[in-house]
C-alpha cells in the first residue's frame, strides 16, 4: 500500500485513491500517418520493465482527477519523486547516484522528493533526461 504524494493536492494520499496508467513519458509519434509500422508498434506495445528506477504515469482518480508522474524503485517500492505532467524526472537510472548532491528535498516522512515542483525548475534544467 503506497502512500503517494499528489503534486496537485500537495499532500500524501493512500494508494486506493490512485490508479496507475503504465509507463510515463510515452510519446505519441508526432505524425502517426507517416511513421513506420515498427515505430507505431513500439509506441503502442513496447514498455520498459526495469529492475530499479522506473517512471510511471498515475492518476489521482478519487481525488483531483489529475495525471502525474512517479519515479519509483521497483525493487524497494520506494517512491523517489512525484512530478506534474509536462515535467521531467530529476531522479533517473543514469542519475540516481547524484540525487543527494543535488540536494533534492525529501517530503515529510522521507518517502518521496518534491524536487520536481515548479520552484525547483532550475534543478530540473540541470538534469538531462
Amino acid at each position, binding site marked *: *500500500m*503506497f*502512500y503517494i504524494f499528489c503534486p496537485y493536492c500537495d499532500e500524501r494520499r*493512500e494508494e486506493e485513491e490512485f*490508479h496507475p*496508467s503504465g509507463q510515463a513519458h510515452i510519446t*505519441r*509519434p508526432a*505524425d*502517426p*500517418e507517416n*511513421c513506420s*509500422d515498427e515505430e*507505431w508498434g513500439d*509506441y*503502442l506495445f513496447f514498455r520498459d520493465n526495469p529492475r530499479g528506477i522506473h517512471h510511471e*504515469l498515475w*492518476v489521482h*482518480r478519487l481525488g483531483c*482527477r*489529475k*495525471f502525474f508522474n512517479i519515479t519509483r524503485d521497483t525493487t*524497494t*517500492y*520506494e*517512491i523517489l519523486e512525484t512530478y506534474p*505532467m*509536462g515535467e521531467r524526472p530529476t531522479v533517473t537510472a543514469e542519475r540516481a547516484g547524484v540525487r543527494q548532491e543535488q540536494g533534492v528535498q525529501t517530503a*515529510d*516522512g*522521507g*518517502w518521496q522528493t518534491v524536487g520536481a515542483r515548479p520552484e525547483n525548475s532550475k534543478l530540473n534544467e540541470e538534469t538531462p533526461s
Partner: protein
Amino acid sequence: MSQHNRLNQGGRIDRSRSLSFTFNGQRYQGFAGDTLASALLANGVDIVNRSFKYSRPRGIIAAGADEPSAIMQLGASEAAQVPNVRATQQALYDGLVARSTNGWPSVQRDVMSWVGRLGGHLMPPGFYYKTFMAPASMWMTYEKWIRKGAGLGRSPAASDPDIYDHLNQHCDVLVIGAGPAGLGAALSAARAGARVILCDEQEEMGGSLLDSRESLDDAPAADWVAKAVAELDAMESVTLLPRTTANGYHDHNFVTLHERRTEHLADTAAGAGREGEVRSRLHRVRAEQVVLASGAHERPLVYANNDVPGNMVAGAVSTYIRRYGVVPGQKLVLTTNNDHAYRAALDWQEAGRDVVAVVDSRANPDGELVQQARDSGIRVITGSAVMEGKGNQRVSGARVVAIDTPRFVVTGSIEELDCDTIASSGGYSPVVHLASHTGKRPQWRDDLLGFVPGEVKGMHYAGGVQGIYALDESLADGARAGAEAARAGGFEAAGAMTLPAAASRRESATEALYQVPHEKTSLRAPKQFVDFQNDVTAAAIELATREGFESIEHVKRYTALGFGTDQGKLGNINGMAIAARCLHRSIPEVGTTVFRPNYTPVTFGAIVGRHCRELFDPERYTALHQWHVENGAEFEDVGQWKRPWYFPQKRRADGQERLETMHEAVARECLAVRQGVGILDASTLGKIDIQGPDAREFLGRVYTNKWAKLAPGRVRYGVMCKDDGMVMDDGTTSCLGDNHFLMTTTTGGAASVLEWLELWHQTEWPELQVYFNSVTDHWATITVTGPEARKLFSEVTDIDLDREQFKFMDWREGRVAGVPARVFRISFTGELAFEINVQANYALHVWKTLFAHGEKYDLTPYGTETMHVLRAEKGLIIAGQDTDGSVTPEDLGMHWAVGYDKPFAWIGKRALNRPDTAREDRKQLVGLKPKDPKVVLEEGAQIVLDPDQAIPMTMMGHVTSSYYSPVLESGFALAVLKGGRKRMGETVYLPMSNGTTHEAEVVSTIFVDPKGERQNV
C-alpha cells in the same frame, strides 16, 4: 481435577474469580487473569495436541505467540467456531470451550499414532509429495484424509453472529510492543508531542516486565508498568491498544493491527453481554514513523525427544510461575547455553519445587545469575547438555552428557537425571518478522547469535528486537528510539527522559549451541525436533542437505520448516544452524530468513470487516429505483448499478394467477415497443458535459467519425477506439451549443471514458481549451419508444413534436410534465423514440405522469433484456458484448462512421492502416439465423464451417449476442465470423458441448426494418 500445579500466592491472577472451562469435553477450573494455557498447566493437563505429521503427543512449550503446539479450536456453538488459536494467547473466560486442533479422534489415544511410533523411516521429508502425488487425480481424495488426520482446524459451518470492522488510523509514531523498550519509546515520543499509537498483543501491557525478577526504582517492575501506562492513557494524543497484534507491515509504513475486543470475554460479543459491539477490529495504520519493539523469542535447544510433554522453553517456565502462579511440574532440569535462562531455575526453586540440576553447555559460566543459583544450592553441571529426554506421555527423566560444542560430539558418559520437566534455552531470536515483511533481509550478528532486522525506511528498532536484552539497556534504548522517531516526525523532546533505576547485571557470554550432539547419529537417534508445528526434525534437515538442498529457502520448502501458522518462530534459526553445520558453512551463508504477513493468524472477519452481506459491494440506484421495486421488477447487475431486467406481470391461466416467466415477460415487452409504446429507465448511461472552444476539435480526435459540422440541436452517434484501432466504447453526443456538447457512454464505460478523455487532454493535448465533467447522476434519462410514442409524449410536453420540426437525431428543450427537460430523438430500439433528460430529483414525477397518460396506450415498462433484444434486432452493438478489444469499426461494418479524411490523426486511425487491421478475413460482425427457429444459440458458441471435421476443429468465430425475437418468431444472433460479410447466405455450424450441432444461416445484422423507416417517422 484440581489445580494441583497452582501456587497459593503470586502471579497476576485473581484467585477470587474462579472460571470454568472445558477442554476436549472435560471440565476444568481456572482464574481470572489466566490464559487457556496457564489454566491447563495449572490443572496438570500434559497433552494438548497431537503433532501434525507423526501424531506424537504434545504439550505446551511456550507462553506466547511463539507457542507451536497448543493450537486450539475454540467456540461453544457452531457459529462461534474459531480455528488455530494459541492457548498461550487466549485469555480464559467463564464457559470457554476448547478442543485440540489435531487429535482426531482423541489426543490421548490416537489412531494415527502408529505413524509416530513407526517413525521417520516411513515418513521422510517430502513424504507427502513423494507418496501421494501419483496418480494426480487421487490427490483430492488423499488430501481429504490427510487433512482430517492432520487437523488444520476448521471454519464454522454456521453464519458468524459477530460484527467486525476496520478503523483507519494515522499517527506520527506507532510503537509495536509494550515491553520495557516499547513503553520507553511510547513515553518519550508522546512527551515530545507526537501522536502515538502503542499496541501490544498481550492481555496486559508490560511484556517481560510482568514476570520479571528485576526491580525498577526499587519496586516491582510491574508497578512501573502501571505508572507508565497510566501516564500514556491520560494523554489525548496517545492511543493504547492492548490485545492488538501488529500482524503485517506493508509499504510506506502501512501497518495492519488486529485488535481482539471481546475474544477475552466470551466466544461471541453477545455472550460477553456486549451485543452489537465489534468483536475484532483491523486497524489500518498509516504511521509516519514506526518503532518496532517486538522483543525476542527464546530458542529451545534441539535434543532427542525434546517434544515430549514436559519439555518447555525456559522463559515460559518463569512466565507461568511468576505471572500465573503455576508451576508446570515437580522436578526441573534446565539445559542452557546462557545466563538468562537461570531465572527459570531460581523461580522454580522459589516456588518450593525441586530443581534437579542446571545443565550448562559452557565450561566456566560465572555470571551473577549462575552464582545466585549455586548459592541457592542448585547443582550446576557445566560443559554438558541434555542429550535426550525420557518418557512418552510426559517427561520422566533427562539423559545428560558432556559435549564438545564446536566439534559436535559427546565427550563423556551419560548421566540419567530423574525429572518431569526439562526447560531449555538456546539463546534469543529477535522478533524481526515485521521488519522483513516488505522484503528487507535480516542481518546475522555473530555476537548476538541471532538475526537483527535490516534497515527499513521510517522504522526504528528498540530493545530485544535488535539484541538488547538487559533491562536497563532496553529501557534506555526504547527512550532513544522513541525520541528519534518523534524527531523524524517533526517533534523534539524538551529534554532527556528520566528512566527508572534498574540493576545492571554481569553476564557470561552465550555459547553458540543449537542442536545437542547425540551419542548416535541424527538419523539413528530418537527424533530431535526443530519445528514442532510441522514435525520437522534435525534428521530431516540433514537429509535435505544430503539430497542436495543447499539454500535454506529450499530446505524450508522440502521439509516444511517454518510453514503454517507458526512461521518458524522457535525453529527457524535452529534449522538454519543445523543446515549450516551439515553444509560446513556459516548461518548467513546458508541464507537469511524472511517472514511474510501475517505474524499470527487473523480471523477472516477482521480482514473482511464491514464489507460483507448487504454492504459487500455498493449498489447504485437510479432516481426511479423505488418505482421499479414497487412494480415488481427483476433486477440485473450492470456494474454496480441495479437495473430493471424485466417486469414480470401477473397472468391468469387455467383459473390460476401466476407471474410471467422471463421469456413471457420479455416477449410481451418487445411486442409492446414494436406495436405500441414502451418506457425504459436509461439513467445509468454515462453522461459527460464537455465545454470549451476546442470541444469540437477534441471530439474529432477521440471519435472515429466527424464532428466539425454538427450543429447545435443535432445529435450524432460516435465510435471511440483506442490507439490500436480497436473499438473501446460508443454512444451519442449532442451539440448543445457551438462550444458545448453532451456525450453519452455505455453504462459500464462511464468512468473509464471520462478518464480516457482526461488522459488525452492532460498528457497529449493540454493546449486544447476544453473541460470534461460527469453529469451521469445529475440527469435522469427516460426513454419513451414505439409507434405510439409521439401520441403519448405530446400529451405531456410543450415541445413541438412535428416530424419536420423535431427530426430523428435532433434534440429539443422544453417541459415534460411541467419539468424542464432536454429531449433527444435517438433510438436504440429502431422505433420512434424520445429520450428525456430531467434533473434527477424530478424524475419520479415525470415518470409517473407519463404512466398516468400512458394507460390508454398500454404504456409498458421494459428492462434491459428487452432493450437487448430490440437493439440486436436492429444490429446495434453493445461495446463490451459484441466487441472484446479485438474488433475494429470496420469489422463491425461501420465504415460509414470512420472519417479517414479528417485532418487530425485521431485516436485509432493509424492502426486501422496496419496490414493486419486491413485484412479481409478478419472476424466481422454478421447476423446468424438458426435453421430451427426454436433454437436460441448460446452466446460464446464457436462457429465452424465443417461440422464433420475432426477435433480440433477450425474455429471461424463466435456468437456475441443471441436472443429469441417475438417479432421474428425465431431465435437470432449477432456473431463475429472470419470474412463474414462475404459469407452472406452461407450455412455455418455451431457444435455444442452436449454433442448436438446447430445450423445457422449467415445474414445481415439488421433483422427488423432494414431501411430504418420506423425510427424516422
